[in-house]
């Protein structure tokens, strides 16, 4: 099975190990937060307390949108988008497309935040997307997503960092395949108990081998998302559009071949949305209207994936006449290979194609990758245990390993404590930093490893069990009877998930590990096999 000789394997092991040692803990943070971010929609709904249940696209909105958009600067009529986030906030954003002096593509317009039921204006801001204040209701899920996507570093540096981590994961997966000579033979060999080092090696290799296909997929698609906007679009714009990113964006989005600038009122949006719902069989998720108030205005309605499919679909209407014009590809006006391939990238990375079922699987895949990362680091430091430097490094593994979920727990606590106050986004970040610092102090003060792990697990257990209670008591969330009456199954599921995870941590404190649960009787003197 080996495709490298001894010297090549040694060099490859150095690349595999050193890249992981230098960037492995950052990779762990990105993958763990990514696993949590898979549930960002559910977290938004859950942390919003259940008040975001009212779907704005299922109720009349035509008159109100016309009332808000018509009087605006015609430059903002180029495109109007309407979107409701998981926490329930409705964003109406009439805008135009511009290129800044630095050559970046921006969307400039007026952003309204509307009440989902009354459609009253809660907030009105004018500028580009980066100028707008974050939505208070979705501060927690936005914080987690931003931590995963760009580690809260400024653009584009954060995206570069996570993109590079994607490539590190990709290179670790490739070098892992080449290094492990008995990948297929060892696929069913459980971790052996005859030595700590061998046990850690077996754990790392077993988890790494099984999660290999999705390590590739998640790493590649993640790196793609990091670099597509920051490097991909500017390169395409430079090569094919003389550096004009607006033109490049419009070509990617697809602009109608024939322009008709004659004024024309917008056809009944409610009627077009109802027709789209009936045609596709699901409620639309968001909509955009291009060339508002013109005869060539188009309404594009996005629907989630149909039964059995992984991609959603865009349905286009003539927004001046209400006539249905067909399904629009993701890129351009006509179906293309690029559009078909790109349509797979999102579902493969987000796992959002079959509701909670596929999301749960993607969370498990992300956690398996976290396990591979941490066991790999443990293996590397364990092999160099004689060195004081590596012993210090080995202490960082549980600190980051437990510190990241504890940081997220701190962020959730701070969000609930500050919501619905004036600035939950700020306090959510403060909560994360405070909990992370507390985790580091714990890691530095508790010297004994088992005691340290159990302390972390105990805090996690208590925190997770408390979260549903805080959601109701501090953040004015709805309690189960009210949620059941309005059919909010997701929030109850999230509450139960917190309780189950909390009890899982408690079981670990009590020493009831998964391994002991599945293998109550240890093997009798397992036979040693060659290490590699």
């Amino acid at each position: 099975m080996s495709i490298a000789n001894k010297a090549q394997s040694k060099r490859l092991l150095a690349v595999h190990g050193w890249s992981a040692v230098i960037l492995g803990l950052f990779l762990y943070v990105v993958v763990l937060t990514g696993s949590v971010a898979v549930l960002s929609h559910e977290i938004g709904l859950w942390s919003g307390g259940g008040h975001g249940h009212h779907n704005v696209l299922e109720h009349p909105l035509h008159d109100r949108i016309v009332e808000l958009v018509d009087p605006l600067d015609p430059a903002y009529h180029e495109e109007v988008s309407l979107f409701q986030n998981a926490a329930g906030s409705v964003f109406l954003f009439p805008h135009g497309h511009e290129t800044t002096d630095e050559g970046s593509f921006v969307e400039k317009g007026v952003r309204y935040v509307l009440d989902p039921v009354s459609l009253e204006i809660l907030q009105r801001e004018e500028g580009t997307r980066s100028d707008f204040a974050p939505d208070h209701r979705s501060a927690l899920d936005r914080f987690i997503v931003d931590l995963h996507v760009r580690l809260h570093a400024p653009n584009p540096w954060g995206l570069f960092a996570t993109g590079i981590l994607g490539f590190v994961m990709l290179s670790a997966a490739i070098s892992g395949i080449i290094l492990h000579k008995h990948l297929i033979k060892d696929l069913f060999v459980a971790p052996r108990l005859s030595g700590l080092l061998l046990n850690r090696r077996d754990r790392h290799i077993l988890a790494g081998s099984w999660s290999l296909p999705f390590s590739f997929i998640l790493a590649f698609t993640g790196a793609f998302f990091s670099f597509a906007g920051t490097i991909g679009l500017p390169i395409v714009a430079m090569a094919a559009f003389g550096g004009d990113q607006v033109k490049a964006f419009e070509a990617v989005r697809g602009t109608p071949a024939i322009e008709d600038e004659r004024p024309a009122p917008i056809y009944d949006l409610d009627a077009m949305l109802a027709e789209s719902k009936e045609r596709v069989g699901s409620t639309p998720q968001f909509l955009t209207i291009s060339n508002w108030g013109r005869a060539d205005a188009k309404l594009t309605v996005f629907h989630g994936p149909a039964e059995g499919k992984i991609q959603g679909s865009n349905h286009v209407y003539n927004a001046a006449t209400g006539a249905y014009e067909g399904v629009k590809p993701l890129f351009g006006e006509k179906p293309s290979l690029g559009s078909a391939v790109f349509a797979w990238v999102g579902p493969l990375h987000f796992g959002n194609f079959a509701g909670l079922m596929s999301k749960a699987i993607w969370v498990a895949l992300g956690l398996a990758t976290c396990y591979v990362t941490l066991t790999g680091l443990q293996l590397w430091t364990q092999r160099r245990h004689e060195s004081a430097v590596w012993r210090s490094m080995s202490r960082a593994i549980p600190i980051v390993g437990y510190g990241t979920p504890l940081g997220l727990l701190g962020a959730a606590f701070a969000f609930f404590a500050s919501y619905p106050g004036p600035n939950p986004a700020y306090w959510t970040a403060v909560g994360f930093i405070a909990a992370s610092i507390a985790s580091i102090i714990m890691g530095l003060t508790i010297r004994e490893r088992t005691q340290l792990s159990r302390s972390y697990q105990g805090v996690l257990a208590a925190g997770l069990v408390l979260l549903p209670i805080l959601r109701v008591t501090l953040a004015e969330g709805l309690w189960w009877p009210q949620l059941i009456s309005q059919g909010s199954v997701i929030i109850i599921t999230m509450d139960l998930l917190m309780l189950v995870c909390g009890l899982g941590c408690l079981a670990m404190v009590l020493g009831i590990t998964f391994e002991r649960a599945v293998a109550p009787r240890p093997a009798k003197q397992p036979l040693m096999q060659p290490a590699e």
Partner: protein
Amino acid sequence: MITATIYICATLLSAAAIAYLLLTDPKRARVFKQKSIVSLPRKPRLAWVIVFSPAAVLLVAGQTSAFLAWFGTMTVVGWLMAMKRPGAGA
């Protein structure tokens, strides 16, 4: 609902084939000095074909959603099954 049913059936079939491969794996038996409770014939190639057979069926049937869900589940389930050490007397 159809997708969920197809996904469950595909997962159960592949999981059963993985369980068979696990029980009949020679290295696993050797490492843990495992004596089989039941003697199973070794047909690893056939078992691998069964493991992957849902992939072909799901893709041909256009059930891409069930295919991806099945594929993701199998990598996690396979790992968790392989993690289980055989009992001392087993």
